[in-house]
């Protein structure tokens, strides 16, 4: 293995961070510039949205179900099983829905974008596109960013709902609780702040997933092996960053809304 001096290493990291910021900023600018690529956006939205639907439905449902099982057990010890609906609903909407959907879509689409764009880089298709007078930022990156942000928003809502359905199924079928009480407490507890937090997160996560996927794809080097590396790095980086950013968004919004 080649040894790299710490300063070179730091320089490299800072350079990548700069390049990533440039790409992220550029992708937003491109969204508002011309030409717009609606057809490409629809195609991506289909790929990301409908393609991810099955896994999001399954994750949402079973997360809600297992959350209910665990919470019921804990609540029973305190003798407050009636709070079950509230616990599941707040947990799903504020935290688990957005984060788990984000992680699933990161695993599926961040990698997909990195490998697709990476293959295009190493086979010079990106250069060919630039040579033909088309801006890959507008044609490839911007539609992916826009459709990931939009689709992740809706996927998260679906995941939240299915989480509640999963919870209600476990509550009434396995635990023998009244499902009407479960649903009414689940609805009533939700405040504007919870919903706001739960719907802001997928917008941010969608942006992270798509820009990271595109960034690693477009900076792939060294043939097919490089594409493989870019794909793995994209999944790891986007998942870790989602979890980090999630903490800071939660902390920030809680401070802003004055949660105790």
């Amino acid at each position, binding site marked *: 293995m080649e040894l790299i001096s710490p300063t070179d290493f730091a320089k490299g990291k800072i350079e990548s961070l700069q390049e990533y910021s440039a790409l992220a900023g550029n992708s937003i600018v491109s969204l508002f510039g011309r030409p717009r690529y609606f057809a490409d956006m629809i195609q991506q939205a289909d790929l990301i949205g409908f393609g991810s639907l099955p896994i999001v439905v399954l994750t949402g449902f079973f997360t809600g179900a297992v959350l209910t099982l665990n919470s019921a057990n804990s609540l029973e010890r305190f003798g407050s099983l009636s709070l079950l609906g509230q616990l599941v609903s707040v947990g799903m909407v504020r935290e688990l829905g957005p984060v788990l959907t984000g992680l699933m879509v990161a695993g599926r689409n961040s990698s997909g974008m990195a490998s697709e764009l990476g293959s295009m880089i190493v086979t010079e298709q990106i*250069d060919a596109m630039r040579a033909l007078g088309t801006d890959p930022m507008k044609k490839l990156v911007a539609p992916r960013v826009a459709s990931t942000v939009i689709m992740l928003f809706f996927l998260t809502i679906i995941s939240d709902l299915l989480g509640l359905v999963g919870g209600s199924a476990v509550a009434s079928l396995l635990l023998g609780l009244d499902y009407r009480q479960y649903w009414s407490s689940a609805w009533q507890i939700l405040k504007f702040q919870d919903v706001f937090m739960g719907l802001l997160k997928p917008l941010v996560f969608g942006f992270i997933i798509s820009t990271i996927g595109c960034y690693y794809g477009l900076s792939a080097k060294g043939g097919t092996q490089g594409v493989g590396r870019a794909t793995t790095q994209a999944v790891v980086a986007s998942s870790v960053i989602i979890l980090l950013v999630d903490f800071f968004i939660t902390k920030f919004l809680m401070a802003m809304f004055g949660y105790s």
Partner: protein
Amino acid sequence: MSTPTSTISPRIPIGVEPATPIIIFQEVSISFDQKPVLREISFQLERGETKAIFGVAGAGKSTILKLALGLMKPDSGRILVLGEDVTAMKEEDLFELRRKVGMVFQESALFDSLNVRDNVAFRLIEEGQTPPEEIEQRVREALSFVELQNTVDLFPSELSGGMRRRVAIARAIITHPEVILYDSPTGGLDPVTSTTIIELIVKQRDVYGTSSLLVTHRLQDAFMMASHYFDKESGHMWPIKDDPKRKIPMKFLILRDGKIIFDGDVQELEKCKDEYIEEYIS
């Protein structure tokens, strides 16, 4: 865009000032990972001329073409294409200029998510000013130019290497750009397909008066281009000896160790006494 020298003015209509070079390299240097690949090279491509670029593998031939399109930036020096300084232009401004230049990549670089029709029509679709029927017609025209009319609905993965190369040529010529950059269009092909491709390039040169830079490993290809002309009536190329008055705008450029060691026409090349070049030619 300000023009740096008085002799070069942008956007001259074709034929008005034939003396203006299409591409000018001025003391261009580039290195990758501290390894110099091109060292202060200067050359020009005149209007209507085809310039063949030779050099061993890794000599920097593809790099020259990418520099000319502004796909890479040199470390120093200036490159003027159609009168505009690509080394000083921002990426957004380059897209406009690149529409006037065709490029055939070494590995074809077709978009593998698109079929042959959409690959060839890519530029017209992106420009968005041509009605669909006309696009269809021009795609067929470009494909019949490369004799691949029957492949419109195939995907690049279903084509052979030589077919892909010809589709790439069709994609580059569909808008009839003033300049075409060919990167090893005959590399790794059999002699028959190579000759077909050479004939295409000669046709493009003699029928449309396209200026081009042509990278090749095969000297015999360039010699064939220098000794043949395309006859529109018969639809074939013929050796020049049938018509000795005809002058063929064909130049040669040889790269070695990052420098240009030869830049001239066939006669000069044949007279050249440099050992390396003599070895190269033989």
